Every structure is written in C-alpha cells, then in structure tokens.
C-alpha cells in the first residue's frame, strides 16, 4: 500500500463514517429518550434511497402508498388508545399528525414527481415522504409498550425491522437502485480525486450535527427531549409528554435516516434490505459510545468507517467480520468496567 491508496481509503472511510455518524446519533438520541434500541433505523435509510431513486426516474415512489397506510393505521391506533369521550379533544391533533401531513406529502409527490425537477427537489420530496412514517411507527408499535423493559422494546424493534423489510420489498420491489449525485463534479488534490458528492455528504453531516446541537441547546423542544432522557418521571411531572417526546425523537431519526439514504444513494446500489447492515454499523458506533455520548458516537462512527475501508482493501471477504468484531474488544472493556449481577426482570 502506498500513500495514494491510503489517502483514497481514508477518504472512503471518512465519507462512510460520516453517514454512520448520522445514524449513530439517531440511535443514541432515540435510546436516550425512549429506551428503544432502534434496529429499524437502517430501513429509513433504504426507504430514503429507494424513494429518491424512484423520483429521479419520474415515478411516484412506493413510499407514498406506504405512508398513506401507516398514517391511517396510526390514526386508528391513536383513536383506539383513547376513551371515546376524549376523541373530540385529541382528534384535530391526531388527524393533523397522522392524516393531513401525510396527505400533503403524498399529493406533492403525485404532482411533482412527473415533472422531474432535479435531485434537490427529489431529496426534499423524499424527506417529506419518509420522515412522517417514523412517528406513525412509534404510535403503532412502541407507544403501547412505553412501560416495557429495554429488552422487550428491543425485541419489538426487531419485529418492526422485520415488518419494514417486508414492506420495503412490497412497495419498492426486489430491484436495487442507485440515485444521482447532487453535484456531478470532482476536484483533484494532488494524486487524490475528491468527488463533489463526498463533500456534500461531509457538509450535510456537519450541518445536521450543528443543527442537532443548536436544537438541544437553544430550543424548548430540544431541552424537553434532554429532560426526558435524564429523568422520565421528573419530565412528566413538569408537564413534558413522554409519548410526545418519543414521537419527536422518532421524527428526527426518520428525517436523518431518510437524508442518509439520499446521501449514499449515489455511492452504492441500495436494495430493500440494504438498510439493516448500514444501520448495524451505526450501531457498532453507538454501542462503542455506550449508547450515551453524542461526540463519542461520531468519533466511533469515523473509526468504523475507516476500519471498514481498510478491511475492504486488505481482506475483502472478511470486511463485515472485521467491522462487527471491532465491537468485541469494546464490549470486553465495557464488561470489565461494569458491575455484573444486577437483577433483571
């Protein structure tokens, strides 16, 4: 290996690591707020990439139908969850969150998709179609389980993941797609060629991180999420809704997941089930960070991206083995530091 190859690998690793970092941030956020280990995070990525690719071809993506179905199901579940007497009170908000928003996104997709307005518009439409799915999923699957243990939530998350992969096959088909780059340019820096897409990814990642930081520091909603993460009961006592926080956390995860999908669509072919492995790498990073630290998760994600890039060069068939084995020394260290024998119910 010479310096040029190393530089190329580093570039690959950093770009992939940036996407893993976004996913890891979502995982940490959702876990802190809801105690859910968000296994289906990767499905948002796949849905995002596939919707983006379909829009690029001028088709209305399957996610429009899926969103309609999820919205209606979440609406019904929301009604079923409440007593009939309180329906008038909750109806406007529930309908707004589960039906109206969805209808607007779907209508926009139907009107704008055939016009083929370019990658930026496609990206916006994709976000509008995929993001609202996340709070609907929370309402459907997790809200009734709010009191359950982390382990039960984890198993439920695996169930949601399975269902979403199946839905992905139904609504997007078995074919793989690749999306167009935002900017079709590249620069040379010495022997290195840097694609504009790589820069777009890095900038988008930095932007999202900055926005998240601002959101958590400066906005009331962001502080409310932090409060729930620190102390669920205390947050409820001062009037922060746990369910509302959960939906907000899921919305952020859905948004960032879909955006990650749009960002990596030009780099690799995405199938309906590709999300899982991508999401798992975000997991490796999140776990290394103890599911607790945001900067830790970002740093770990970069390490995962770099390890993956170099492993692909040296031992291609064992790339995935090496990436997932990275977690083991970390788990070992963590287990040596932790005190075992706590009671688990």
């Amino acid at each position, binding site marked *: 290996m010479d310096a040029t190859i190393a530089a190329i690998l580093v570039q690959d690793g950093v770009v992939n690591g940036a996407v893993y970092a976004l996913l890891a941030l979502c995982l940490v956020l959702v876990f802190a707020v809801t105690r859910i*280990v968000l296994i289906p995070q990767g499905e948002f990525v796949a849905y995002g990439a596939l919707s983006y690719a379909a829009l690029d071809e001028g088709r209305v993506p399957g996610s429009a139908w899926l969103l309609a179905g999820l919205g209606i199901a979440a609406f019904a579940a929301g009604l079923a969850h409440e007593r009939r007497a309180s329906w008038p009170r909750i109806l406007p908000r529930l309908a707004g969150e589960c039906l109206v928003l969805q209808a607007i996104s779907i209508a926009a997709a139907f009107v704008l998709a055939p016009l083929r307005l370019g990658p930026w518009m496609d990206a916006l439409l994709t976000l509008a179609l995929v993001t609202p799915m996340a709070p609907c999923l929370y309402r*459907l*699957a997790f809200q*009734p*389980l709010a009191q*359950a*243990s*982390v*382990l*039960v939530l*984890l*198993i*439920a998350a*695996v*169930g*949601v*993941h*399975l*269902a*979403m*992969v*199946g*839905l992905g*096959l*139904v609504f997007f088909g078995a074919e793989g797609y690749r999306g167009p780059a935002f900017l079709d340019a590249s620069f040379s820096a010495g022997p290195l060629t840097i694609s504009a897409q790589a820069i777009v990814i890095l900038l988008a990642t930095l932007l999202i991180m900055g926005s998240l930081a601002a959101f958590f520091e400066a906005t009331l909603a962001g502080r409310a999420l932090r409060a729930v993460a620190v102390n669920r009961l205390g947050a409820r006592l001062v009037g922060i809704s746990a369910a509302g926080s959960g939906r907000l956390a899921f919305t952020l995860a859905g948004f960032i997941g879909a955006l990650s999908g749009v960002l990596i669509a030009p780099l690799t072919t995405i199938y309906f089930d590709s999300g899982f*492995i991508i999401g*798992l790498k975000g*997991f*490796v990073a999140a*776990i290394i960070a103890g599911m607790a630290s945001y900067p830790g998760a970002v740093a770990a994600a970069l390490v995962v991206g770099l390890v993956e890039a170099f492993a692909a060069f040296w031992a291609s*068939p*064992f790339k*995935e*083995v090496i990436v*997932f*084995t990275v*977690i*083991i020394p970390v*788990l*070992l260290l*963590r*287990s*040596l530091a*932790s005190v*075992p*024998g*706590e*009671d*688990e*119910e």
Partner: protein
Amino acid sequence: MIFRRFWPLAALLAAIAVAFVPQVPIFWVTLADTIGIGAIVTLGLVVITGFGAMTSFGQASLMGFGAYTTALLTTQAGLSPWLALPASLAVAGLAAFLVGSFTLRLSGHYLALGTIAWAVSLYYVFGNLDLVGRNDGLRGIPPLSVLGTPLLDSRRYFVVVAIGFALAMWATRNLLDSRMGRAIRSLRGGAAASASFGVSIAGARMLAFVHAGVLAGLAGFLYAHMQRSVNPSPFGLSGGIDYLFMAVVGGTGHLAGALLVTIANDRLQDWLPLLLGAGGSYETIVFGALLVLILQTAPEGLWPLLRRGAPIRRRAIRPAAPLPARPRIAPGEAVLEARGLRRNFGGLVAVADIGFDVRAGEIVGLIGPNGAGKSTTFNLLTGVLAPSAGEISFAGRMLSRITPQSAARAGIGRSFQHVKLVRGMSVLENVALGAHLRGRAGALAAMLRLDRAEEARIFAEAARQLARVGLAEQADLPARSLALGQQRIVEIARALCLDPALLLLDEPAAGLRHQEKQALAALLRQLRAEGMAILLVEHDMDFVMNLTDRLVVMDFGTKLATGTAADIRANPAVIEAYLGGVA
C-alpha cells in the same frame, strides 16, 4: 400418578406412530421434522431468556457450529455420523462458552446487542472460510443410519427428531428442577439474593448459555443430516431472530411454549403464501407485526394463556437424611467482630469507624434514624460492598475481601430490606435456594436424574424450615402470590436453609401484622436459644426493645451508643438523635 409419569413417553410413541400412518401425507411429516429441530433450539433459548433473563440473537449461529462440525467430520474425515454427534455437541457448547465468556458479563440490552454483533460476524465467517466451502457450503453429507438402514425418508427421520427433542426436553426439565437449575432461575429477579447464598451468578449464566448452545448443536446436527448439505444461510442473524421470535411468542417462561410456537410458526410459513398470494415478503411483515402485537397484548406469551386456571402442582416431600450441618459455635463466643469499618462514597463518609461484636446466642439490634448508615453497614458485612477501611472477623477468623458468596460460605445468612424472591418459583423452591451450598450435584448429574437423593434432602430441609416459620401451607404457591410480610418470612426460612451461624435480618418485621410479629419474635428467641447469633436492623422500636440483648445505635455514619435496651432508652444522645434536641 402413573399416567402423569408416563404421559410424555406415551406422547412420544404416539407421535412416532402417527408419522408412520400411511394416510398422513409425507409433507406433514417433513414439516414435523423441521418443527422438531426448531423446537430444540427454541428450548435452549427459553432457558436463556425465560429463566436466565438473558437475550441471545445468536442461537442460529451456534446451531451452525453443530451442523458444520458433523458435515466436516463425515464428509472430510469419513466419520460415522453417530461418532460425529458428540463432537457436534461439544463444538457448539465450546463455541457458546467462548462467545459467552466475553459477552455474558454484559447486562440487559448490551448483551442482546453483543449477540447480534457476533451472530453477524459468524455468518460472514461461515460464508468466507474455504474450510467450510464458503457460501456454497458442504454437500454430500451421509444420512443417519440405524442398524445399517439409512434414514432417508422423512417418516424414519422423524423417529430420530422426536427422540432428540424428547431427550432435550427431558434433560432441560431435569436441569431446571435441580440445584443448578434453581440457580439459573434465580437470575430473573433474584440474582442478588442467590449470590448471597453462594450461587456464582457468572457461572449460572454461563451454564444456561452453554446448555442452550449444546441444544443448538444437537439441532444443527439433526438439520445437517436431514438436509444432507449445509450452507451459511440458515445460520445468520435472521435465523437467530426467528428462534427468539418463537421463544417470545410461546412464552419465554415455559418449556412447552417452545414446541407450541414452533409448530404455529412453521404452519404459518406454509399457510401465509396460500392466504396472501405468492411472494415471501408478506411472511416477514406478518411475523414482525405479530411479534409486536404479542408483546403488546400478551407479554408473557401464549402458553400461560392456555395454562390459565390449571391446578397448582404439589411437590411431594419425602423423609430424607438431614443435610450436613455446620459445627456450632459455643454460646457467648464472638461470631462476628467488626473493627473500624469505614465506607466512603466519593467525599461522603457513609460509615465511619463502626465496630461491634455479635456473640453466639444473642440478638443484637442495629438501629438509627434514616440515613444513619445501617444498610451500608449491612452491605459491608455481607460482602455486597467492599469496606474502604476496617476489618471483619468471623468465628475468630479474619475475612479479607468478602464477597456475597464467601459470606455465605462462612455461614452468614441474610434477608433483604427490599424482598428478593424469585417471583415465578414456588415458595418452597425459593427456600431451597438457601441450601445451595449444602448440595454438591452439578448440572450433568441433574440432567441425568442422579441428584434425586440429594434433592430429597434439600427439599426436606426446605420444608422443615418453612414449617418452622409457619408457612408450610403456602409451600407450593408461586412466591409472587404471597403478601409482602409473608415474603419477608420466606426470606428468613431461606436464610435458615443455609444453616447459618449468623443471621442478618434487614427490617424483618416491616409489613407484618401484630400476631405475625409476635410469632416472628418467638422464632427469633428460639433460634437464639439454639445458639444462633442474630443481628437485625429494625425500625419497630417495640419489637427491637423487647427482643434484643444489646443495641448498637448509629447516626450520621458513626456509632452513637451501645448497650442494653434500658441503657439506650435513657441515653440522652440517642433521644436527641431520634427526637431532636431539647430546647
């Protein structure tokens, strides 16, 4: 009685007989073979998840070790499959031991995520190793044969699968109904308590994990010789998720649930495509949605719903020789001597230079206002916390580095301020957990039913202690059904099962009615008369003052006073601590 004893055997023979009825389509029998194999894996997972309170997504990978071992040994080394069987079991068990040794120390969801990580890794290892044929796998695995007859068709193979499942079920049931099995079952909600009766928590977790690994190995072996070829695809994470799904749906606390749901699951796999039209995608959608729905509506799984209202089984207690007893310490001799005990939490000194004795045949009360450091002192004496300074001698011997297990071995029996019983086990079984250190039988002996004589002795002792505390009537009820006060008394019976020289009781009278308190006081007096040393933390002053020989009063982590009840009542410092200063 005879029926109950032999019905599993009858059911096995009946199932085999049905498989050979020519009118039963071969398709169904093939399905039954798959179900049986899946049920063996799920059985192990139920032990891990339902009883051991751990989660593993990696059982399919362990199954892969069993399958690949026999595939390699029979195709490459030309070994007979029956000789490869022990190797399959051993390799899968060893694999479980190795991955367990670095993941089992993790708790809760970290453990679950750890198993996901190695399940994914192992899948790619299987798919990329030349030794096991990469993604193509290994072909040409010989069929199992009995007396020279190869078991080629599904009906004959069903005999092997059915017997394999029956043996797995038998061994697992036997294991759970044994000394080591109770240690595994205590992991759900009672780990801290069982540790203080000498159970090695790490050991119990590993035992459950390796047992499940060996079962997965058996399933892998059966799978390999049924398919006659192996490749990585059934041994990945999705396989592991399927098995966990089955365990959750069946009800992780119940062995029979494993069989029930594997049946339902495989049936579903056949019927869904017919119901919903072609295409495998609906299957995963329905699986995923069903999994969530079951967690929402029946978190205990389906089996308990079927069992609802079933009568409670009574355990027969046979007279048996008493368990070996500890040599008694002569009354008046010091059992416990604490000197200069100190414990800091960061800058906070919770316990500062506490020292006192407890002698055989006396009851010492440890009292003090809330936050005085009584519980911390208790935890120092029982090895739950390590002291920052100071020394503890027991029966004249210095104890260095006390752990809950070593405290139990030394002869310190304890109860807990917050009751720690295994909610799903019967009262009697909870009490029997106290006698863990007085038995020897290991897991293998238990599976083969070689531990029955010792078990009879343990249960005779447990029944005796339970009768002594007045709860003989409740012996067969699940522990969770008792009132809180009664659960405290069960904890005392459990502590007595250890045959302790020193009994540490943390608020034993809390939640008891007047009559029950008097009965408890009478019991403690009787134990004192027998030469037991008793240290109790208690808030009920009447109870303490009438019962104890001496009192140690703590306030703000320091010893405020010691003396008889009358001395303490008259001590101005104590009055000030409890009632505030006299203005």
